[in-house]
């Protein structure tokens, strides 16, 4: 840029600033590719919808990188107004009281009606505190569901399994005979651990799953989940399932290529699958073990939430509140749901999608939200554990070792329990 155009640009922006006096806020997010474009579109729509405020979305890398950048910026007093924080990092942000302004307070203080019951059941409390006050605004929310290749199921003459027992005895052997690897999954800590506990309504941590205080202990070393991993390892060994590594894509690609018949992924994967695969596919609820429960419960959300960072002026907070209000409006939520596959977070947006016939056109798009709206249980609202990113790393490591036969299921779970509790104790110590 030459000095002259730069000067011109500076002069213009000065004039523009003087003319409108917009309050500008920043939004750090981790949405790349198609998702990032949708985020930019939402921001542009918000800016066009009114002339008091303007929002600037900034892509900061992966979820972990965004959180780290946000923390570093906060410590330097340069934090953005809105920061996107993923599920595993939520405990870190929520525990740091004073780092964020609870969205519930932010919206009420700025004159917007807030009723937590407007949000769909599985979304409501995941980013809330122990008293049920919403701290972070759920943004891209998804839940693990079972996708299936319709051609594969037809070839094998089976339907998608409802329970793991059915999968083990009926679905998987038939799919294997039809020449498919019956199943793969993309995130064992999320799908086979956190949501395993929720789907079977099992307690995941002491202190009310960690919501009541940082000095919680993880309750992972339980017979139900050990049996599940013993079964899964058995399936992998006998060709009833495939394990392709820790990475998300490693396990999704064989399904997209039509080698694997069924894949456990995110309800938010829907939009991508529509574009990638060339076979008819649909989805169903996450299977459960009938031997563990006959009344399976809902799962909770994964994904990320938007947090309003503290230390901002009242005008900027008003702008943030206005943006949250815009973001949760029916039309924006429906548009987000349609283009990405993430669930709409409010009941009203869900009703809009239903009324518009979205689910008649794409039945699979509704599975996630149906699962989040199933009957709730005592242990289905979520979990809150500090240093949880590292705890997930420990799980991934031990699960990987189970799969390669380097360790036994018993030793792996004993290890996870010990190391996770050590991390939780360390985190509790930082909260003094």
């Amino acid at each position, binding site marked *: 840029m030459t000095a002259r155009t730069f000067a011109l640009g500076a002069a213009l922006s000065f004039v523009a600033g003087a003319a409108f006096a917009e309050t500008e806020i920043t939004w750090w997010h981790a949405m790349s590719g198609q998702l990032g474009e949708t985020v930019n579109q939402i921001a542009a729509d918000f800016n066009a919808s009114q002339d008091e405020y303007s929002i600037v979305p900034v892509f900061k890398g992966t979820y972990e990188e965004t959180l780290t950048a946000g923390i570093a910026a906060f410590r330097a007093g340069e934090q953005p107004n809105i920061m996107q924080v993923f599920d595993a990092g939520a405990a870190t942000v929520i525990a*740091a009281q004073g780092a964020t302004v609870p969205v519930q307070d932010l919206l009420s203080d700025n004159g917007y009606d807030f009723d937590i019951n407007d949000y769909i059941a599985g979304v409501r409390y995941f980013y809330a505190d122990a008293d049920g006050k919403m701290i972070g605004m759920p943004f891209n929310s998804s839940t693990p569901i079972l996708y299936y290749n319709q051609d594969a199921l037809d070839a094998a003459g089976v339907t998608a399994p409802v329970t793991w027992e059915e999968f083990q005895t009926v679905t998987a052997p038939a799919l294997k005979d039809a020449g498919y690897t019956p199943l793969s999954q993309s995130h064992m800590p999320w799908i086979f651990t956190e949501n395993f506990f929720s789907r079977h309504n099992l307690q995941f941590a002491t202190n009310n799953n960690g919501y009541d205080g940082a000095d919680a202990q993880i309750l992972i070393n339980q017979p139900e989940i050990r049996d599940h991993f013993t079964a899964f390892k058995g399936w992998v060994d006998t060709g009833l399932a495939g*394990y*392709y590594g820790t990475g998300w894509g490693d396990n999704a690609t064989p399904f997209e290529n039509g080698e694997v018949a069924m894949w456990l992924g995110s309800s938010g994967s829907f939009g991508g699958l529509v574009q990638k695969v060339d076979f008819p596919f649909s989805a169903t609820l996450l299977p459960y073990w009938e031997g563990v429960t006959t009344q399976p419960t809902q799962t909770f959300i994964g994904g990320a939430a938007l947090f309003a960072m503290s230390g901002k002026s009242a005008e900027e907070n008003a702008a943030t509140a206005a943006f949250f209000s815009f973001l949760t409006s029916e039309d924006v939520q429906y548009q987000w749901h349609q283009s990405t596959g993430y669930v709409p977070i409010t009941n009203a947006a869900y009703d809009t999608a239903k009324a518009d016939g979205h689910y008649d056109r794409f039945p699979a798009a509704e599975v996630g939200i149906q699962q989040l709206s199933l009957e709730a249980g005592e242990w289905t609202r979520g979990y809150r554990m500090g*240093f949880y990113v*590292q705890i997930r*790393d420990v799980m991934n490591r031990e699960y990987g070792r189970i799969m*390669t036969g380097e360790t036994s299921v018993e030793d792996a779970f004993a290890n996870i329990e010990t190391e996770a509790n050590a991390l939780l104790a360390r985190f509790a110590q*930082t*909260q003094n």
Partner: protein
Amino acid sequence: MKRAGFASPWMPFLLLLPQLSIIVVFFYWPALEAIRTSFYLEDPFGFGSTFVGWENYWQLFSSSEYMRVARFTLVFTVLVTFLSLGLALLLAAKADKVIRGASTYKTLLMWVYAIAPPVAGFLGVMFTHQRFGQFTDLAAFFGYDYVVGVNFNDTAFAMILTAVWKQVPVNFIFFLSGLQSVPRAVQEAAMIDNRSSASRFWTVTFPLLAPTGFFLLITNITYALFDTFGIVDTIVRGEPGNNPMTLVYKVYVDGFRGSDLGGSSAQSVILMVLVLALTIFQFRLIDRRIHYT
């Protein structure tokens, strides 16, 4: 004769100031900060900070996982150093004898040097990819089920292969120039005394290469310990799972991904001590015994 000197005794310090301030701001200050943080357990957002003494260190040394990573780093460093030095020496000794098209050979062997570590890592990822890696196909041809990302050893192999491939050209350049500086007269004299070129190499050329060799040994150890970060990162893609990682990568995983500032500072202090020890070893022991001519 008049001694040249500064008019004011402060002048030299003033002239050194820019350099010194850069060193202080970018090296000493962060290093001291790391040492300080390593004795604390800190809330990521900086609200609470508890002095815990040596607990962060004690916790590392009692962690079987940290020890496992340390053992892997040791094996990794030894293998990468030995293989990249050995291969480079072999290539340099052979290239030194090439008469026709020598510069073409040399250029072909050197160009890899210009590749950035993440790009090298990416090439390694492609080469050993689970689904379409040429190496995976080759292993399958010999009946071995090579699955990078699932099997610990297979992933370790991919890392070592990539790290060695990236480092050989650097060593090659140094060894080649080292070989070319071996005096012709010595070589000719040796040729009269000894007909076996292998024995001539080990008794005459190799000792004369020792200064280059020891210099490369230290730089290769540092390379394997620290500069392979980009390669490890590209291969494990931020999620190590049950895959191998090096100590430097663990600092990143615990500190940047996991927000455990105290624990990861303690790890970086340990690495700092390691580098210090290596440097002392280089200056004290080796410089005394190796004569650079």
